[in-house]
């Protein structure tokens, strides 16, 4: 009965309240999703509550956050699940309490959600592999530097990369492929520094997310190898954009987090208002290079204008 009541859109009675739950809160990527969500909420006149697990990337903590919002009785939940299985039950719980769920960014098993809005991560890895293979002219020795153990979206990127490199570029060989950077930039930095010390012959590197890309970039810059080693990374931040311009990074695979956040909330609101929505939305992956980085479309992806939506 509640939904019909809100369908009538009585202003001032009670605004729709939507919880948006990212995997973490401190990366630029999530910041941009937040901006997208705020944008949608302003356009559609709803309230959003933005809240990640207290420890970044901790499945158990994310489950608690979902449960706590169920108890608070929000109208809908937009969730970027840290695990495609572990979050199933809390999502079921939400549905049982008639709280609909939209999934963004990463997959969730089952059918309990109303829509799935995400990047094709595997495809992101494929694009990166093709770019790096092309940069190296189809032969050379490279590193695949992995992010964290058990992180699904980056693992997909890594797999996309690995599959493509081995199948399409037989001349390229992997010097390293099972080293994980861990969660922070500093650990990535040290890892890359030590790897370069061991394999100075390396010609190409791929990193699957922002922190690993930036840590590795710092190591390359410090070793005065930036620009000499072909380097493809993932996601953007001001320092990475600068590096792209300087030729220290040769390609950045980009997602469209702004759109992801925006569509996630929008799909939810449309659903709450009783409209039918697509069950799957691909927000796309793009490759930014030094050449195309000043195109307006790329510029928007590289430097999303979230200042307009977030206070700081």
């Amino acid at each position, binding site marked *: 009965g509640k939904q019909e009541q809100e369908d009538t859109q009585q202003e001032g009675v009670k605004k729709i309240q939507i919880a948006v739950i990212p995997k973490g809160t401190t990366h630029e990527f999530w910041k941009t999703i937040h901006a997208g969500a705020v944008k949608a909420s302003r356009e559609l006149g709803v309230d959003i*509550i*933005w*809240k990640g697990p207290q420890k970044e990337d901790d499945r*158990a903590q994310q489950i608690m956050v979902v449960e*706590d919002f169920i108890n*608070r009785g929000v109208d809908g939940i937009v969730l970027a699940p840290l695990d495609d*299985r*572990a979050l199933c039950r809390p999502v079921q719980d939400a549905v049982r309490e008639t709280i609909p769920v939209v999934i963004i960014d990463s997959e969730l098993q089952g059918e309990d959600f109303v829509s799935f809005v995400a990047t094709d991560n595997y495809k992101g890895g494929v694009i990166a592999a093709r770019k790096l293979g092309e940069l190296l002219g189809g032969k050379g020795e490279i590193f695949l530097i992995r992010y964290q153990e*058990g992180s699904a979206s980056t693992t997909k990127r890594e797999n996309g990369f690995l599959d493509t490199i081995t199948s399409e570029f037989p001349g390229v060989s992997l010097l390293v492929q099972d080293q994980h950077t861990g969660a922070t930039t500093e650990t990535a930095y040290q890892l890359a520094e030590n790897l370069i010390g061991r394999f100075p012959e390396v010609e190409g590197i791929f990193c699957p997310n922002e922190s690993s890309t930036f840590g590795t970039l710092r190591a390359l810059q410090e070793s005065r190898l930036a620009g000499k080693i072909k380097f493809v990374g993932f996601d953007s931040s001001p320092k990475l954009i600068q590096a792209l311009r300087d030729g220290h990074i040769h390609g950045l695979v980009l997602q469209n987090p702004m759109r992801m956040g925006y569509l996630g909330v929008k799909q939810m609101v449309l659903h709450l208002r009783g409209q039918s929505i697509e069950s799957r939305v691909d927000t796309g992956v793009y490759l930014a290079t030094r050449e195309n980085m000043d195109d307006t479309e790329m510029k928007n992806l590289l430097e999303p204008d979230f200042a307009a939506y977030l206070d700081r």
Partner: protein
Amino acid sequence: MKKMDIPGLQIIGKKRIQYVISWLAPFLGLMLVLAIFSLMPEVQDRFLRVNNFKSVATQSVIVALGALGMTLIIISGGIDLSAASNIALSSVIVAFAINAGIPPVVAIVFGILTGGLVGFVNGSLITSLRLVPFIVTLGMLGIARGIAKWIAGNQKIDAPLTWVNELMARHPEPPWLLMAPGVWMMIILAVVMAVVLRYTVFGRHVFAVGSNEATARLCGIRTNRTKIIIYSVSGLFCGLSGVMQFSRLTVGDPTVAVGLELDIIAAVVIGGGSLRGGEGSILGSMVGVFIMSFLRNGSTMMGWPNYIQEIIIGAIIIVAVSLDQLRHRRP
């Protein structure tokens, strides 16, 4: 002169007040937290609902089970930094076993025993090499976590759903249970451990070892054996906690519970446990666990940003322990 005439009475009066205070002190922090959120207009109606209390109880099980063992260890003057890694390892083992087609009951036993084994190794190293617990368990923190990742092949293990996953369901299967079986288990085990600490010879020896190890040894207590038992029992609790973790996640995740050892230790210390040994109680530790859980729950409900939550929880830890200090101040 006059007051000297009835020193007995005076002492009893003072003692009774002291006793009441000392009994209430651990609860003060909890009341404070509950009061804060009950007064927040945004959540007060929702916060005080039975359903919310049920969620908080379920969310507390994992830390609470860890804290039961940690209480023993801290009373005995030790510390266990490997508790969280141990939980992750055990949960991976359960998932691995279920995945391999082993009956769930056996898988659970494997998980618990894995925890016990890690604890036993901790205890044995501490006593045989005469190393400080901090170091041994710090080493074990890395070792257990590494083994968990190894077994899981650097990935989470997707195990088929079984009744094990019902242990931590917020809506338990026979509905008359009211709360998840895991919550009942936590309550029963807490009572058992409280009785063990208070009414058994073993319990006394735990306090004695923590209060003055040399004395305990000179009084003929086999301190090494006692310690090994303490660490093993605590390991078993971590194992069970790992089972619950698996039940909740439905997957075996080697990266789960990173840093949870600090939460567990904090709960015990908030509840009056002294890191110098000789002090602590099960009741106190449980209250400590719930203080932290309600704080998290309330802040999330309020939608406070994580950094605010981090700051507040940090501050509350200090405040709660300061309140507890009241007990120890001489009147």
